[in-house]
């Protein structure tokens, strides 16, 4: 399989919002079709990604250590962190649910932080290793990011629903605010990262201009 030519090498820029492809446009010029500024790469991609990741790592500790939910009834008051909720499900025999919450609330944010750190680090070092795997990793991160919001919605719903004075009350704990912040920050970090950085300076590319040839069949 021959390597495709890149837009960078042919002097092409695509408009992100409308998809128009321009020849000979300068960085930052307005797209002639929709007026958005044209960029070869997401501006300041790595700096933004690192900054957002650092903030997310910082919030990850309180998100997991502080209670996300406070349950009180006639007899006692119980404070739950993300993991104590999972453990409760597990010991009461709700293994499926324990697994869903553990994956969405604990593993996914951790996996995203690790994956984005790896991607940004390797892009920064212009690493040529496992480019295809890194591209796949980025697509996975993009797809699963939103599902970490699960716990935020569970706590919101329980806080709104369980409000029977004296008998049973659920209130949101500070941990959920930290947790929501982690989810938003990692989503912003993955949106800031430009996957094209993984492939920049990949060698060698064919010297033919693909636009001068009959198109190949799509797969």
């Amino acid at each position, binding site marked *: 399989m021959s390597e495709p030519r890149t837009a960078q090498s042919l002097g092409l820029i695509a408009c992100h919002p409308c998809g128009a492809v321009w020849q000979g446009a300068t960085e930052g010029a307005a797209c002639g079709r929709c007026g958005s500024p044209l960029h070869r790469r997401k501006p300041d991609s790595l700096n933004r990604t690192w900054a957002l990741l650092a903030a997310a790592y910082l919030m990850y500790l309180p998100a997991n250590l502080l209670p996300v939910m406070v349950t009180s009834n006639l007899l006692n008051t119980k404070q739950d962190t993300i993991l104590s909720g999972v453990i409760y499900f597990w010991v009461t025999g709700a293994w499926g649910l324990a697994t869903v919450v553990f994956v969405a609330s604990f593993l996914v944010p951790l996996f995203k932080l690790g994956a984005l750190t790896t991607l940004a680090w390797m892009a920064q070092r212009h690493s040529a290793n496992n480019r295809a795997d890194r591209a796949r990793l980025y697509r996975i991160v993009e797809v699963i990011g939103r599902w970490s919001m699960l716990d935020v919605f569970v706590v919101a719903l329980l806080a*709104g629903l369980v409000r029977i004075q004296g008998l*049973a009350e659920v209130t949101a704990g500070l941990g959920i605010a930290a947790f929501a912040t982690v989810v938003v920050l990692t*989503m912003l970090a993955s949106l800031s990262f430009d996957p*094209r950085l993984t492939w920049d300076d990949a060698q060698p590319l064919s010297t033919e201009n693909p636009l001068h040839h009959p198109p190949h069949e799509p797969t």
Partner: protein
Amino acid sequence: MQLVPHAILCEGCDAVYPRTRLQPGETARCSRCGTELERYQGDAHQRMLPLVLAGLLMFAVANLFPIVSIMIGGQSSDTTLVGAVAALTDEGMGGVATLVLATTLLFPLLQLLVLLYLLLPQPRQLRKNRPLGFAMLVRMLQMLQPWGMVEVFLLGVLVAIVKLTSSAEVIAGPALGAFVALTVLLTAILSFPPRNFWHLAFDAPPSRP
């Protein structure tokens, strides 16, 4: 600067491809990094309007009625989505309340309303005159896409219900079914990439050279 028609650039790795006419059900992927370049849309936009209208209807039901109610010791309590947001606000969780409100209510509603506005004129006429604010609204759809989370909220509702079944009697409210329907409708509606509005407005279907 010159427009290069019939070129597609891969957003995952910057590779350049000529645009091809896709057959129904086909998706073009980058041969180098696997990122999706384009998928066959055909006349999907012509079937979108009824879906958007149904979505708005379900949206109203989902937000006006209680999602679930519980019975504990002879007392009952229920909540709507807005009720949950209000409860968070009362507890001093304004930021989290705003986030929940935006991702489950404001953003999906905005997406549906913008789509309604863009789809109401026959898409055939998009070539002649685009509705006011076209560029800004398509951009808005693209920006909202990652932040509408109705399907995640639905899973959250189900987890909350299971959490409660051990300590209370849980009764599903009318909004629960509406949320299920809304999730299905939104999945179908949002599989239409906003960028295609530009294709509808500008591009003749790519022809084979």
